């Protein structure tokens, strides 16, 4: 009885033990890779959560930063929180309708050749680095006329657009053709069918896609550096001014040598991460609920 348990005529005792050792080592490596992946996430989230939690206080949300702070007076990032809300809301308002329209055109009206080539362009657009988008909007809108929250929102909208368009296209494609045919068969016009039958049916998926897009873009720093970064420290909700945002604030604080600044950066980062994770979870839960029906 040999190691692998089989003996008899025509049974090869070839390199099986060695092959089995190779197999086991490879499996061990795969386990290791998974452990590394999960471990890194764990370490990062743990750092952000623990350092952020200990530095968390209400001042962060209610008090503005004090420039050149050599004082120990309480300060926060209220301007950044306000600015982020304004800019993300504006960006969503810009990207959502355009993204939906693009998806509607490509999925409901466009011939297959246009659908694939425009689809390719949209995928390429998705790959343009955020910092390049920032410079683009800078050259397009900021040069000569200054920064503003609207321009920052525009840059973020460019980042959101391909994402919203793609997810909306996928959701539209999932709407069964029989629905469209039923409506058209009644004599309802194409445009009416699209707006009253197809889109409402796809609404859930569009909402999910939007939530995910917002989660993604809330943490974007690069496009805002050139469009809405040189901002006042007082909390402002005026979109025509450049407004401070959380990601940019964290970015600036991370470059500072002052540990008090680092503390505020961790705290703001913790809130940002929490928001993003909650948004992603909500989106996932929403889509799971829909498919279960």
């Amino acid at each position, binding site marked *: *009885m040999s190691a*692998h*348990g*089989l*003996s*008899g*005529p*025509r*049974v*090869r005792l*070839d*390199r*099986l033990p060695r*092959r*089995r050792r190779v197999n086991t080592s490879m499996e061990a490596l795969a386990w290791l890779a998974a452990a590394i992946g999960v471990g890194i996430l764990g370490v990062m989230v743990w750092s952000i959560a623990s350092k952020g939690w200990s530095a968390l206080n209400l001042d962060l949300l209610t008090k503005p930063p004090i420039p050149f702070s050599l004082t120990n007076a309480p300060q926060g990032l209220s301007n950044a929180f306000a600015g982020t809300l304004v800019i993300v809301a504006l960006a969503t308002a810009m990207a959502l309708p355009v993204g939906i329209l693009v998806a509607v055109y490509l999925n409901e009206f466009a011939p297959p050749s246009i659908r694939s080539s425009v689809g390719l362009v949209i995928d390429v657009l998705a790959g343009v680095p955020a910092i390049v988008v920032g410079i683009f909007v800078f050259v397009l809108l900021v040069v000569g006329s200054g920064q503003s929250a609207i321009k920052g929102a525009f840059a973020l909208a460019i980042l959101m657009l391909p994402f919203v368009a793609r997810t909306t296209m996928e959701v539209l494609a999932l709407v069964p053709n029989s629905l469209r045919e039923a409506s058209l068969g009644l004599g309802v016009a194409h445009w009416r069918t699209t707006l009253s039958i197809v889109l409402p049916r796809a609404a859930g998926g569009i909402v999910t896609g939007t939530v995910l897009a917002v989660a993604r873009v809330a943490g974007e720093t690069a496009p805002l550096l050139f469009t809405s970064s040189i901002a006042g420290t007082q909390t402002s909700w005026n979109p025509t001014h450049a407004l401070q945002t959380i990601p940019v604030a964290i970015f600036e604080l991370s470059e500072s040598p002052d540990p008090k600044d680092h503390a505020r950066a961790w705290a703001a980062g913790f809130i940002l991460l929490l928001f993003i994770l909650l948004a992603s979870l909500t989106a996932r839960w929403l889509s799971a609920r829909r498919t279960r029906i």
Partner: protein
Amino acid sequence: MIEPAVRVETRRQPMPPRERLEPIFQVEALDAIYGAKPAIKGVSMDIYKNLVTAIIGPSGCGKSTYIRCFNRMNDLIPSFRQTGTIRYHGQDICASNIDPVAVRRNIGMVFQRPNPFPKSIYDNVAWGCRVLGMKDDLDERVERALTQAALWDEVKDRLKASGLSLSGGQQQRLCIARAIAVEPDVVLMDEPASALDPIATQAIEQLMLDLKSEYTFVIVTHNMQQAARVADMTAFFSISRGDEGERFGELIEYDATAKIFTAPSDRRTEDYVTGRFG
């Protein structure tokens, strides 16, 4: 004697007498279960070397499950459990200390739908040899396997072409060549011709007859005529009901093919082969 629904016309040679038959598998009280549902129960039979053994029966009687026990392919399904023994050259290959990889080395399988690798025709046959350590005279091994699979003449000029560029029947013969290239003892065939046209089917049946002197074939088929044409021994499985009303597959009768089709002992066998059911 009954008038079979099937005319037993075959090109096979008559079987050697029972005493000279050598068992290669000895199955004892084999039960197979998926989760809570039994698939087959209480199967006991001997499969003999260098014969073609056919497993026939209505759909759902567990034929595929049964044949996949012989090369431990059911291990890939998480809810699968089995009890009983299958002795191969005297050792129980179902035992937990037996490595399935070693088992599959000696007991090959051809599947219902052709599944050649996305590689060249040459590499489809050669890859298994390379990995399993049979690297010498690779060209010769490939040619021999393809010749035995009755495919060599058709592909010898385009060995570099993709295996997927062949027709369905050729692909299946390529899969057979791939399986015999690694020199197994036994080739299990799970309905190998069910996805093929009659001409391709005939080629594969002839193959089994020509090669059985070197290999042992066990073939699952839902086509009775096919069993009658190629098999020396035939095992008839059918669906039975248990005490709690559960359905499972069971070996009803196992004998020389001629007897199964002309003078079956069991009423259920007779019903099946005369076409009264199934």
